[in-house]
């Protein structure tokens, strides 16, 4: 469907990879992957060296490939995260104090130039963001639906866990509703290529999507209550604890990051 963006990962595709493919990362315990995500978040927050950040990013890219996932799609999916980096780091690349790269550009508001420090900052922020993006996608594309549901149920307090589980289940249904609505208007000659001229059509499609969602939720209440639900029950199965070697690996990751932080980043422990 062309109108649904290919810059945003389609949950249906993501689940198809996790349900129907087999790869080395599919066999890694889901808790381990969560642990690694946490470690990576911590790492990209405390590490300040561009080479180290670039190395981390390269490593996640390799893992993504080993997991058997498609690089071309990843390129599309980078669009939005990169946009976020550009919107924050873009101006900073010019404003950051330091030595300009090449000549400066004279503009009415003064001289504009990208400094070495600015460019490096831009690189750092890009690596930080894409490292976690890549690994988060690797994790979701290699973890079965039921296991993700279990993690959500475990990590979130009631009633947020219940909400998240229903969201996960009904995201697929709602995407199809939206897609059907888009198909419906396109089939009758609507063009969705320009926003302002078609604002009413957009409003109707989005309005109908929300209306369908609300009415579906009204039916869902009936069906859940018909089976005795009162807002408080476990909806998910079970995920075993990770095997010892995976625990060791995750602990090692954290230990490494803490050591790096203390020694290199904050130099609490002088070498």
């Amino acid at each position, binding site marked *: 469907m062309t109108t*649904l*963006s290919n*810059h*945003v*990962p*389609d949950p249906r595709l993501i689940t198809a990879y996790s349900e129907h493919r087999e790869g080395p990362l599919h066999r890694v315990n889901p808790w381990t992957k969560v642990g690694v995500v*946490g470690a990576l*978040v911590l790492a*990209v*927050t405390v590490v*300040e060296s561009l080479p180290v950040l670039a190395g981390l990013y390269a490593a996640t890219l390799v893992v993504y490939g080993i997991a058997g996932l498609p690089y071309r799609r990843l390129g599309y*999916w980078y669009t*939005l*995260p990169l*946009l976020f980096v550009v*919107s*924050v780091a873009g*101006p*900073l690349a010019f404003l950051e104090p330091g030595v300009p790269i090449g000549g400066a550009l004279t503009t009415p508001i003064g001289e504009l130039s990208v400094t070495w420090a600015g460019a490096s*900052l831009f690189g750092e922020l890009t690596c*930080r*963001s894409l490292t*976690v*993006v890549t690994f*988060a*996608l690797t*994790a*979701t594309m290699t973890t079965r639906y039921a296991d*993700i549901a279990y993690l959500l149920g475990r990590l979130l307090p*009631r*009633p*947020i866990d219940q*909400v*998240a589980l*229903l*969201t*996960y*289940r*009904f*995201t697929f249904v*709602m995407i199809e509703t*939206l897609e059907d609505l888009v198909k419906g208007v396109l089939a009758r000659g609507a063009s969705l*290529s320009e*926003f302002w001229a078609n*604002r009413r059509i*957009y*409003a109707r*499609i*989005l*309005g109908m*999507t*929300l*209306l369908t*969602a*609300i009415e579906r*939720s*009204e039916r869902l209440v009936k069906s859940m209550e018909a089976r005795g639900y*009162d*807002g*408080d029950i476990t909806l998910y199965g079970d995920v075993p604890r990770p095997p010892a070697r995976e625990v060791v690996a995750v602990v090692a990751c954290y230990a490494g990051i803490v050591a790096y932080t203390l020694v290199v980043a904050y130099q609490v422990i002088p070498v």
Partner: protein
Amino acid sequence: MAHIHLGEGSFPLWALVLWTTLGVALVGAVVYRIRKGGIKTHQIALAGIGAAASFAIFQLNIPVWGGIHMNLTGLVGILAGPLLGALIALVVNIFSAALGHGAVGLLGANTLVNASEAIVAYYAFRTLLRMDWDIFPAGASAATLGLSAGAILMGAIIVISGVNGSALPRGDLTIAVAGLVGLNLGVAVIEGILTGFVVQFLASVRPDLVGLVDRTTSEESAGVTA
């Protein structure tokens, strides 16, 4: 939803801890309020499917400036109320982060931003309706207000945190961020107008959803707008 999420690793560690703590506090307060009233199945169902819809809508490419994506957080706030609106913001952020959109470490910050959008939009909408505004201007203004509040909050978060690894003085950072917030305000107006049209459409089809008529059995809407 403000159209710029904060990317992973943008902030120093202390800021990450601060925003996470504040985010947890907000969500904790919401959960406390909901639990105190007794968790109602219809609240859970509405929040769950509402978040699914918001997430699905995000998949739609809206052709402005080469393509933008929206979650319609303001609209969700207007329809679901501040409590469920905040929960939906959190859940949508969790799923977005899982799909590499937004940030795991900045869930707290991003949730604060989006929840504020939903909450401000809701109260603005109620207030404007009480002032006898028409449905379209009320919806559009409320959503624009909510989204603007979110954009400004996000700017403030960036300025307070400082960008990880940047030596730029806060004053200059503020200038850079002001440009970003300005851009987001532009998008807020577009999303606000779109929200206005959607609210107008919903009012013509099911007026009870936007609080224009009372349903005789108020059970349904009571918890929703609590």
